[in-house]
């Protein structure tokens, strides 16, 4: 506890010194989904004044099913956004002036989950089954998966809830490891009662969220872009180191957004984000490897989502090095 106080005091001290020495720049950010521990790094950095310490007075917009972060960025209604790589490549291919400042997650958390009772053990067992799928970018890899195993499935478009899976309306559901998978566990299923298929285990890994802004902003104020990324990474580190505190901060934003708050669920989510963001432990922040980028771009091209793959160099503009 005293350690925490000391750290907070340090933050405040640094913040004050920066405040006095330079003027805060206002900026905005939107996550690509509703407030939850999936974005704990951003909320924690804002709540603890880490952005301010880095000279940014940040406003976080609320994302969600009806709010597309990509669209907001495209419409220049926000400075920074978290966007999935595939989504961002589509934007870029469409000609939107968007650049990747940092790749947060390289390993995909997207998975398919079946109840063991359904008898689905292998990809082949899914043949002829009803599979719950999400639209948009969530659809690309499952479809590639079904193609890969030459499966004829009955796709059922599902919403943000996976209740259809609980009602046995579908045999297999899409799930994010850090989110829906735990929702299934929270509905009384034990891990040994489920069969899981991580798409990344089947050669269908898509790096997921990254931090994006417009190329224009990066040109005009690269310093702010760098500060935003640094502050965000600091926020993540703090969140992982102080999970309960971070969860409570996230809960505050969830409450504001009138969302149901399930603490064990958020705790799980933050823990999984740590596995995904820092797979090698402390400070092991990811870069976007060109090979992975090209795999996603090629997949999108094959899928027909894009016509031309944007060049890697113009897309990935990391403002920090890994050592930073």
């Amino acid at each position, binding site marked *: 506890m005293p350690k925490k106080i000391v750290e907070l005091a340090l933050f405040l001290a640094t913040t004050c010194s920066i405040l006095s020495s330079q003027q805060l720049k206002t900026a905005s950010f939107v996550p690509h989904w509703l407030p939850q521990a999936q974005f704990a790094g951003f909320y924690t950095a804002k709540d603890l004044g880490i952005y301010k310490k880095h000279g940014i007075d940040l406003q976080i917009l609320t994302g969600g099913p009806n709010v597309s972060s990509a669209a907001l960025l495209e419409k220049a209604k926000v400075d920074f956004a978290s966007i999935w790589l595939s989504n961002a490549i589509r934007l870029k291919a469409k000609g939107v002036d968007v650049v990747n400042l940092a790749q947060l997650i390289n390993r995909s958390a997207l998975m398919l989950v079946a109840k063991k009772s359904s008898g689905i053990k292998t990809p082949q067992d899914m043949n002829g089954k009803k599979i719950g799928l999400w639209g948009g970018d969530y659809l690309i890899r499952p479809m590639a998966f079904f193609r890969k195993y030459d499966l004829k499935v009955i796709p059922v478009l599902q919403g943000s809830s996976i209740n*259809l899976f609980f009602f046995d*309306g579908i045999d297999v559901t899409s799930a994010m490891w850090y989110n829906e998978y735990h929702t299934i566990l*929270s509905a009384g299923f034990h891990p040994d009662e489920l069969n899981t298929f991580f798409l990344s285990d089947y050669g269908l890994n898509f790096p997921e969220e990254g931090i994006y802004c417009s190329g224009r902003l990066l040109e005009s104020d690269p310093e702010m872009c760098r500060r935003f990324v640094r502050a965000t990474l600091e926020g993540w580190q703090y969140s992982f180191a102080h999970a309960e505190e971070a969860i409570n901060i996230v809960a505050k934003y969830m409450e504001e957004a009138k969302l*149901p708050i399930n603490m064990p669920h958020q705790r799980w989510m933050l823990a999984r984000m740590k596995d995904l963001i820092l797979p090698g432990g402390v400070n092991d922040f990811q870069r976007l490897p060109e090979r992975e980028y090209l795999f996603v771009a090629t997949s999108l091209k094959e899928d027909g989502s894009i016509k031309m793959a944007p060049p890697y160099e113009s897309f990935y503009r990391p403002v920090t090095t890994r050592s930073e």
Partner: protein
Amino acid sequence: MRNWMPRLGLSFKMIFLICVNVTAIIAVIFTYIYKVSHDTILNDLKESSRLLTLSTVHEVEKNLVAVQKVANNLAVIIQNRETSNGQLEELLIMAVENNPEILGAAISFEPAGNGPAKRFGTLYVGRRGKALYKTYSDAGDYEDHIRDWYLIPKELKKALWSEPYYDEVVPNVKKVTYSVPIHRNIDGHMEFVGILAADLSLDLLDRIVSSIKVYQTGYAYMISRNGSIVSHPKKEYILNTTIFSLAEETNSPVLDEIGRNMVRGRSSFAEVEYHNLVTGKKSWLTYAPVSLSGWSLGIVYPVEELTSSLNDLFKIVIIFALIGATILLIVIVFISRSITRPLRKLAFASRQISGGNFHAALPVVKTRDEIGDLTKSFGLMQEELSQTIGRLKAANDELENYSRTLEEKVESRTAEIKEKNSQLIQAEKMASLGQLTAGIAHEIKNPLNFINNFAELSVDLAEELAGIIEKESGKLDKSTVEYLRELLADVDHNVRKIGEHGRRADSIVKGMLLHSRGKSGEKQKTNLHDLIDEGLNLAYHGFRAQDANFNVKMEKHYDRTIEPIDVVPQNISRVLLNMFNNSFYSMNEKKTEKKYNPQLVVITENRKDRVVIRIWDNGRGIPADIIDKVFNPFFTTKPTGKGTGLGLSLSYDIVVQEHRGEIKVKSEVGEYAEFTIVLPKIL
């Protein structure tokens, strides 16, 4: 081996064991009764909880059924006839208006359908406060078709209740939707065209469930088929969490198991015990499914409160038991004291008795029981012991006496032996002296014979000379004759004296030789009394010859039973003569004293194998300092020439050595002297 054990009194052991046992018995009884009562309560609870749970479920389902009926009716109407927008609107408004439990109703059509979807996607009529509102959404620009209330019944092709959720339009309103899929006969087959949905406020159901109060802190809760909390006293749980999340958060496998059984539609009536999430207290749980919606209702019974009346009763019972136990303890203490006190006193008395006090006081026990018997027996024992010890003491005294007498006897015996020993020494001395004397006597005898013979011859010669002188007297002058006569008379006198003393010396030497030679004479049966009389006469007349005035009063007490005994008569006669001579001499010496009447007493006694002669006189007696020496040879108190000092020595040899008898002397100077001669009857 068990030395470490402290010494515990009988009373302590008794109290301890009785208390332990009574406590154990009471504990067993109480535990049994408690368990039975507890089980009875639990059984009653099972029945009452079943009733309460099922009636609550019924209450909840009543509301669900009401909504279901409205929705089903609407669905039938819409399914079976073509309706205009206005008619649909009217139907929904009517349904919401007339059914207060309905929060809102919607009709939603498939986006690409052939039906009313041409006109709109969803029509919703909702309630905001008392007012109603309606919204339309376009068919293309709406995502209702992936919402649970639409998608799930569509996929499952049946009417059903959704999972509870927050209303998208009215903030903070939690609801649950009953959706009926609408199928229409299109080109000869039934085709899904849309959903008719009716919302029910979750608050309404929550109120029903929350109204259940069980004792002080018991409560009811309801979960959805996913375990989502639908109703709970902790309102923050509702829709925020699931029973499984709570199990995860509280790390409770029991709760997880409860949740799994509940969502599987199982029932349980007060069979599960767990710590409830409101008070954390141990509780019994009852649950039953709300079948219509696939939910489950749980009722929590706090064990403590249920059993509190039982506990109160048992508290009272325990207080009574404690009071009883205390009384019992006091009684036991009293009884054990009444036993141990006399026992302690008896122990004290027995210690005293062992210390020698046979009159130690015994406790007074009036009770006619074992302790009384023991005390009585103890008293008897004490008495017996006292007597026995008394007898023993007497015997001991006697024994001591015996030992003392024995000691005295040993002492006297030892003195006797000592005396004998000194007598033996004396005898030895005498024997050696005797031998010496014999040697000397033998050597002196020869010259003495010369002396005697020549003395006698000289006498004869003197007589012859005298005759010659007489014959020749004339030849010589008168004076010369006279002178010759005188000279011859002197010679004659001297020679006679030499002869006299020579004979005397000869007799001494003879006596000495007789003494030393120890020659035993012939033994023969002899009448002792005759010997005594003979000796006495001889000695008395011998003295009377010297002095006619010598008179002695003589008494003789002879034991006439004495038979003749084996002795050497001349020797014994000699001894007796010696004795009598000494007595007469002693008395004669004393006769100068006035009023002196000499007296001699001779007594004989016949003993078993011996004869005793006692010779008593009242002469001068023998002084104590010389009485030891009287039997020594040559010891005499008589003037020179009157005694040889061999008389008693000789007598000693004769009696002791020759006859194996004894000779003893006892005397008091100036009073008496007594010689005792003991002779064995058979030599």
